[in-house]
């Protein structure tokens, strides 16, 4: 059935959890593209045929106008016209089916790529520039490039504004938070102190200092 593969592609995207990605389905994607080109192959001869029919109809009409013809002949040409019209109609509908299937496939393909791109965009807010491997292997090469470009776009906006928008994702309750360090980070300069961050150390520090480490998975916030 036309359009089935494309809908599978979209369903696959929908079925995975919101904000998560499955591997880019190259195989199915290529099959849908192939189907699209198949539609075009059907479409083109049909369009040509329709054109021919139209020309023929025009010729008929012209000849009717030009020469006064006997009743017998005119009936014959009338039947001829009806015959051509029916043939044209069936071709037109055929062409329409192929056209609509193609458009539908295109919409599905675009939806698949576009919605994945949205997820990739949202990743740009939580990860700086470098994708973790387990996500990267799920993307197509164009998607990887898109992520890089988009992250750069975001960065350039923030540097122009001189304001980092990726911190402060949740409204602050307290300027200081309690965190546990999950990895040996070593000595770092925080905004109000110099601290040595050793594994499993518990610290009380400024939220803005801690957030970048938390988003990189190097610290966790202790609540309660």
């Amino acid at each position, binding site marked *: 059935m036309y359009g089935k593969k494309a809908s599978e592609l979209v369903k696959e995207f929908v079925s995975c959890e919101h904000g998560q990605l499955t591997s880019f389905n190259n195989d199915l994607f290529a099959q849908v*593209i192939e189907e*699209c*080109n198949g539609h*075009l192959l059907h479409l083109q001869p049909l369009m040509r045929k329709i054109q021919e029919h139209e020309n023929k109809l025009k010729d008929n009409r012209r000849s009717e106008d030009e020469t006064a013809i006997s009743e017998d002949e005119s009936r014959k040409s009338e039947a001829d016209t009806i015959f051509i019209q029916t043939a044209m109609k069936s071709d037109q509908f055929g062409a329409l089916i192929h*056209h609509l299937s*193609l*458009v539908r496939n*295109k*919409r599905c*393909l*675009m939806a698949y*790529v*576009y919605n994945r*791109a*949205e997820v990739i*965009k949202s990743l740009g*807010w939580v990860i700086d520039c470098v994708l973790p491997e387990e996500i990267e292997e799920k993307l*197509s090469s*164009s*998607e990887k*490039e*898109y992520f890089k*470009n*988009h992250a750069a*776009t*975001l960065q*350039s*906006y923030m540097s*122009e*504004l001189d*304001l*980092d*928008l990726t*911190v*402060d994702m949740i*409204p*602050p309750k*307290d*300027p*200081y938070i309690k965190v546990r360090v999950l990895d040996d980070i070593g000595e770092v300069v925080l905004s*109000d102190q110099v601290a040595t961050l050793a594994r499993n150390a518990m610290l009380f520090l400024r*939220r*803005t200092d801690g957030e970048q480490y938390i988003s990189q998975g190097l610290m966790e916030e202790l609540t309660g």
Partner: protein
Amino acid sequence: MEPGAGEGSSTDDYESLISTTDAELLKRAWRNEKAAPEILKFEAALVQRSRQQIQLMEETVEEFTRNGVDPLTVSLYQMDLDRTLFLLRSYLRTRLQKIEKYVLHIQKTAELWNRLSKQEQKFAIRCVGDLTQHLEQSVLTKLPDQYQSHLKQSGASENDDMVPEPKLDTYIICRSKKFLGAFQLDDSGEEPVNIEADDLYALPYKSIKPLVESGQIDLV
């Protein structure tokens, strides 16, 4: 507070003063932006003022710490600073996310385009570039000639019929500070809604759009 007759008016004064501070205005702009389905006008002057205030506050906090002012006072200032910073960041962030989402629609609608700040326009242009390049590489160049536009479904469509747009008829919760009287929602002939001061209403965004734009009603 002064006892007796002056009390009523002084609380009024206090409230009107509070509701026009930049912090409050920023909060309002932020709330509206968060709740509205489409992008609203960029509050350029307000953002600039807020940034100046933030800088001032940062300096104050620094000075306090240097001069050994009571840590509690410092931390209160710091908290205020952090909150304002959060509001500002979240405001800008919400706008960027809307731009990311509806960039194609915003770009071709002059009215929306003019609502962006200079930097946001730059951001949007780059966004469009990145997105179209990605879509072209992945899908469009592999399709037949007539079907390669990223705005139209095919060469046969007259309008751009493939551009994601915000849903303007979603319901939003809103509240007015003043009594606005009977308000006609749309042309469907339904009864007008009486908008009272400080009452909450759930209305379709599309119908109260002009009120939001003129600042008569706040989104919650």
